[in-house]
């Protein structure tokens, strides 16, 4: 799977990391639904960490479309409200 962190970079993730990302995505949706801002930022940081740690950055010469786009790392809780809804960033 190819994941982009908006305003940063694209990464290639293996299936295991992609599955972990999906789980965190669902937790982020739950945090937003519950209005739990601290929990949301905690989970979102974990998502960013996972992508940066497990993903291998795409070369600048690769013209690939992303399968999932994570919002910018400095996203506010209000902005997150329109991103992490329903099935989240990754459809289940």
């Amino acid at each position, binding site marked *: 799977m190819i994941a*982009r962190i*908006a305003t940063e970079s694209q990464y290639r993730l293996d299936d295991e990391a992609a599955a972990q990302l999906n789980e965190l995505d669902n937790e982020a949706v739950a945090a937003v639904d519950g209005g739990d801002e601290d929990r949301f930022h905690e989970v979102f940081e974990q998502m960013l960490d996972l992508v940066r740690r497990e993903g291998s950055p795409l070369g*600048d*010469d690769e*013209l690939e*479309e*992303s399968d999932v786009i*994570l919002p*910018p790392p400095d996203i506010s809780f209000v902005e997150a409200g329109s991103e992490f809804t329903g099935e989240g960033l990754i459809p289940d």
Partner: protein
Amino acid sequence: MPGMGGRMSVVIKSKINKLLDRAEDPSETLEYSYQKQMELLQNVKKGIADVVTSKKRLQLQQQKLEQQVVKLDTQARQALSQGREDLARTALERKQFAQGELQSLDQQVAELESQQAGLIEKEQKLRSKIDQFRTKKEVIKAQYSAAEASVKISEAASGVGEEMADVGMAMQRALDKTEDMRARAGAMDELEAAGAFDDNLALGSGSTDDIDRELHQLTSQSEVDEDLERLKAELGSGSAPPQQELGSGGEQERPA
């Protein structure tokens, strides 16, 4: 559901696709698409220049405030050596306030610097992708039939399109933050014009104005006290000259 950037790139992609559907000649489409990409690259350069301009403006303000801090300290020293503790206190309160502003300016400048670095990195990345697209378009033109070409063009254009949307978003966010800082800097200019950092300490004016009262609230009294003690120690005072030498006025400012 794609993320925020996803939606933006979807918009760009649908525009590109419409373009592709309309075009009779794939090579014409490729050239047009490439031209659009180069235009966006110019916009990114302009965005970076805007951030640099804002940074320079804040740096100028930093310099002014630094000079102000030195000047107010000198004024406090002078006031104290003439036995005017009340004026020295006012000068030190203003100095504390200016130092507080200076700290927040330092943070803002640091933030703009990191945004500038981020945008430069994004610009380079986009430039590489556009270069890649240029190479691909020549290959596509040379090797594929019109029908095959449109699929290949669509793939390549989508990849660049997403990158363009992402750079656009990074630029927008940087400029929004810069706007906030600009508004704040404007507020500081107004404060300055209103005399908060007035050169002249209104010697002998005899009463505290609104800004003084505000400053009293804003500044930490204990920090001012410490500063005052430091100056007294430096001046070896404690044997201050009699206060009547300096005429009337200021004395009433000081709470008994």
